[in-house]
């Protein structure tokens, strides 16, 4: 009985939320670029949402649990780095991929200090992005398999 009670803890429960039900945010001040990536993800049956403005991105993040954010360094109303910091205030463990058309090293140094999973120059290599997504979802799939098995959980 105490075991089941443990499973009702907020941390345990929130980590059991299915990641595949979560949204992927694609934020880029260049709307066409955002739409391209989001389109690819939608086609692959993910819930992807393109945004050119940080404010729109944050609105989404407050309404729906994000599984991943693909954020460009330049957005229409703020920098991508600022958006990432604000997203992390909502969801501290959110995996982030940063994209940029700016090839300067200083941009990369600033981005990597946010703690990101991948830094990629544009145009975004969709295959490599797919590897990141597979990794995030694979972790969740393993967790779900472990849950379905009988015996101690958590």
């Amino acid at each position, binding site marked *: 009985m105490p075991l089941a009670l443990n499973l*009702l*803890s907020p941390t345990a429960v929130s980590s059991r939320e299915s990641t595949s039900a979560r949204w992927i945010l694609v934020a880029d001040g260049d709307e066409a670029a955002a739409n391209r990536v989001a389109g690819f993800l939608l086609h692959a049956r993910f819930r992807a949402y393109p945004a050119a403005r940080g404010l729109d991105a944050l609105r989404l993040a407050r309404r729906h649990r994000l599984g991943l954010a693909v954020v460009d360094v330049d957005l229409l109303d703020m920098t991508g780095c600022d958006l990432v910091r604000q997203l992390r205030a909502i969801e501290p463990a959110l995996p982030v991929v940063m994209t940029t058309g700016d090839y300067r090293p200083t941009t990369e140094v600033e981005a*990597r200090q946010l703690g990101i999973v991948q830094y990629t120059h544009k145009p975004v290599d969709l295959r490599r992005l797919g590897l990141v997504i597979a990794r995030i979802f694979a972790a969740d799939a393993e967790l779900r398999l472990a849950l379905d098995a009988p015996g101690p959980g958590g």
Partner: protein
Amino acid sequence: MDHPRVLVVDDDKDVGEFLRDALSRWNYDVSLATRGREAVRLISHQIFDAALVDIWMPEMDGLQVLDEIKRHDPALEVVMMTGNPMVETAVQALKSGAYDYLIKPLNLDELQHLMQQVLEKRFLSREVHSLRSRLADHLAVKDLVGGSPGMTRVKEVIATVADSDSPVLIEGESGTGKELVAVAIHRQSGRAKGPFVPVNCSAIPADLMESEFFGHVRGAFSGAVADTLGLFRSAHGGTLFLDEVAELSPALQGKLLRVIQEKEIRPVGSTKTHAVSVRMIAATNKNLEAVVQNGSFRQDLFYRLNVVRIVVPPLRERKGDIPALITYFLRRFNERFRRDVKGIAPDAITALTAYDVPGNVRELENLLERAYALGARDEIERANLPELAARSDAPVATVDEPIPTLDQAERDLIARALARFRNDKEQAARALGLTVRTLYRRIKKFGLI
């Protein structure tokens, strides 16, 4: 915020009055407008916290009012109302920034609940607008809260080792603040002015690890349109924090060892090497020695990283720190939610202390944040910590109370799980360790539907 201000815009006077009555009863200050222009005039010289706007109005319809509101105050959340729901209009409203829409006739319970949500968002969005500081600033040394022997030791070791360049291995359960410790070391080191680059080793796909860590040159692979620095060169002159270091692929473990030894890296696709001066801090929630024993982690790399080991104690071993942590979080959340929670009720703190907090400090923070979201005002009360009630009221009966029968306890647990997951049988079954079918049988047995 004692009286949140709500603007109601509806050309139907009866609806307007009805809403004003309901909202006033719930302690909101309400302003009414029967026309869009009137609403626009009101928002131009008053600050509102939320707006309820009817879609179908003469002269200026709700969508136009929505646009005006967003133009004037993008953070003001607007809920649309309509007696005549049409998909296109609803989608348009949401795209234009409406928070939600309600269908008339309005359900008061739904409205009340929604208003609460909307106002919480308003608080959050204010915080977002004023947020300036870099992430690193949040993680200052003073964030290592606690005067317990365990934490005091941690801080002593940090002070001792910060200034050298020796690698540090931080061990501790999830949610104990290992990254905070790493930042504290960085901040107290001679590298404080340099970059602090955190890496979650479990998040990076194996195929991308080399180029993420060591960078690549243009043309190294399809998609490599320009040179990148990679994690090591980005951290040059500063500190590289490898969280969940046990998750590094074997290939990368070997390369990491060489970098530590040679102090240089070679980008993917390049023949050139680059010297790097990076201080390494690694962290794990595993017993790394055991991982080495079973062959998943290189022993030579382990020795290189384990020059200094800091063990961060789990929260249950430093319960004396809980009051200080609560105060720390209350200050933070008061600022974020614009509230004045002055403290925590004795029975709430007792419950928190009795609970063994498996998720450690991060879970404590979540519990308190939820208390705020659930409406904690003057102080955190036991009632603001509902999940806690489910746990610490565990079927350990006191001398006075009768021990529940297994059936009673099981019924209670199932009822709580259903409430917790809002009747989602799949999730409830999963949490209880039952198949959905078994859960349905139990529900039927106890007459819970």
